[in-house]
């Protein structure tokens, strides 16, 4: 468009590549040292080993924490996505007064320091005599996942033709069947993406889990307890590498699914 007088591509492009490199390199040290045959994360590298991964696979406390995190993530993802989808549907299909402040209220968990949310919930649960457990962590995770789910679903449902639903109803379908036959299939990629993102958020979340966990640890809380012992470090690195890999797979999957059937907007804009 402005090919005559634009900044050379290479400068901005090189900067962006450098930016990406700086984003990735620190994180990539974790997998690198996880194969290193030494308990210290130091150069020079000592040699290749899978010992830390083997130890990890036999660590029952860690496997228990992993199990907890997966259970929690699945439940949180399902509930948050149901709530987020309903809220998104409310905003995109119906005219609601005060839509902007209401949306803003739902988005508050995105901008509140998590430590404040964590201790507030801790205070309420302890005053009500609710014992700390996966349930208490789950409540806090749903609070922070619903806004994400809602935003994903709004971007999916926006521009979605309400005429399709009206047509189905005019043709005599009940509201429930209309939902099943029309709305749900169209929203499905968004729903899957929301499930995956909410699962990832819950699975990786540390601060809220730290304040609200009782005897049942989640994986990040378990990692936190291990970080104190230098001898446990290689195990943490191995575990961390597996988590990184799994997160990457899930996020790429979520992004890919979310875009199925979304017509590319003009000049490739994707409103995320």
């Amino acid at each position, binding site marked *: 468009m402005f090919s005559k007088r634009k900044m050379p591509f290479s400068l901005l492009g090189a900067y962006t590549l450098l930016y990406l490199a*700086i984003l*990735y390199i620190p994180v990539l040290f974790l997998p690198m040292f996880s194969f290193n045959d030494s308990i210290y994360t130091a150069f020079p590298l000592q040699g290749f080993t899978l010992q830390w991964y083997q130890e990890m696979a036999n660590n029952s406390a860690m496997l228990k924490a992993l199990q907890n995190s997966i259970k929690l993530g699945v439940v949180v993802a399902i509930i948050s996505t149901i709530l987020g989808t309903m809220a998104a549907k409310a905003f995109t299909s*119906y005219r609601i007064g005060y839509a902007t402040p209401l949306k803003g209220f739902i988005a508050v968990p995105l901008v509140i*320091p998590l430590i404040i949310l964590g201790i507030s919930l801790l205070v309420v649960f302890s005053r009500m005599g609710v014992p700390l457990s996966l349930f208490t962590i789950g409540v806090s995770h749903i609070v922070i996942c619903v806004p994400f789910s809602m935003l994903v679903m709004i971007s999916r449902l926006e521009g979605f033709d309400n005429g399709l639903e009206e047509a189905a109803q005019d043709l005599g379908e009940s509201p429930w069947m209309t939902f099943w036959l029309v709305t749900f299939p169209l929203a499905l990629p968004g729903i899957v993406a929301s499930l995956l993102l909410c699962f990832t958020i819950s699975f990786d979340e540390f601060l809220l889990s730290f304040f609200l966990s009782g005897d049942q640890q989640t994986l990040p809380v378990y990692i*936190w307890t291990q*970080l104190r012992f230098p001898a446990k470090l290689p195990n943490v690195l191995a575990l*961390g590498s597996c988590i*990184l890999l799994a997160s990457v797979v899930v996020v790429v999957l979520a992004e890919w699914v979310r875009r199925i059937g979304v017509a590319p907007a003009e000049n490739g804009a994707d409103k995320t």
Partner: protein
Amino acid sequence: MTYKTAPDTDNTSNDRLRKGWFRASRDTRRGLILLSPTMILLLLALALPIMVLIMLSFWTQTGMQPEPDFTTANYRAFFDRPIFAALLINSIENSALVAALTVILAYPAAYFVAFRVKRRKIIWLILITLPFWTSYLLRIFAWKVILGFNGVINSGLISIAFIDEPLTFLLNNRQAVIITLAHAWAAFAILPIYVSLEKIDRSLLEAAADLGESPFWRFMRVTLPLSLPGVIAAALLVFIPTVGDYVAPLLVGGNNGLMIGNLVQTQFGRGNNWPMGAAISVISMLTITGIVCGFLLLVYQLKKRLA
């Protein structure tokens, strides 16, 4: 939907009007029904807890349990101890620097993806946001591995015989916290900036070019002002949550890099003074809100003056 009083002649238009109104209100009701579970959840698990926290901050604790009271003693105690306020100011400075750093560093990358990349933007976007979705704890921890006494930088420099002894100024200070947080939140800043740049109507830029603006002034007068909402959103999305961060100060900050979140945690943990912890949280929340409002007001004023 029967409308009994409507006679078949003169009231039809009125009838239609009422039906229209009825339909609109039915729509609103359906929308509100869909919205209500989320609202109830957030009222119970977000609004109510924060109210309780505020209430608790006026209570006292002498023994093991907080006791109902209505005293400002906790607030006075906060201001009586300069170290508390200093910690809050430190945290705010850290987060402001982190926000500025992330926004400034993210802007050119967002600009590149929005304006220079023509095809497969999505791949760039996924690449940029991917690290954000991987474990926060591990991203912070990675910096401990890098900056630590036996870390990547020290052992690397020693093994090439550039230094003899590990550098100790890398870890356990504020700079380490700022670098770590800026890295951990980078992806959060780039998205809002990218979206606002992408939304800019390209014909405005063409118009500016046709009117003879140089690329630099085209950027200053068109692109930058129009992308400002994204920049502001990005700055706030990074600033607000990082003020309360607890992990980075503990892992890479050492004693010199502690932040207000660590103080709050201590009051709820070892310190076992929940009302005091609540008061510190409330003060922090109010301060953050004040700063954010002030910042937005400033931006608004600036905009009005420029317009």
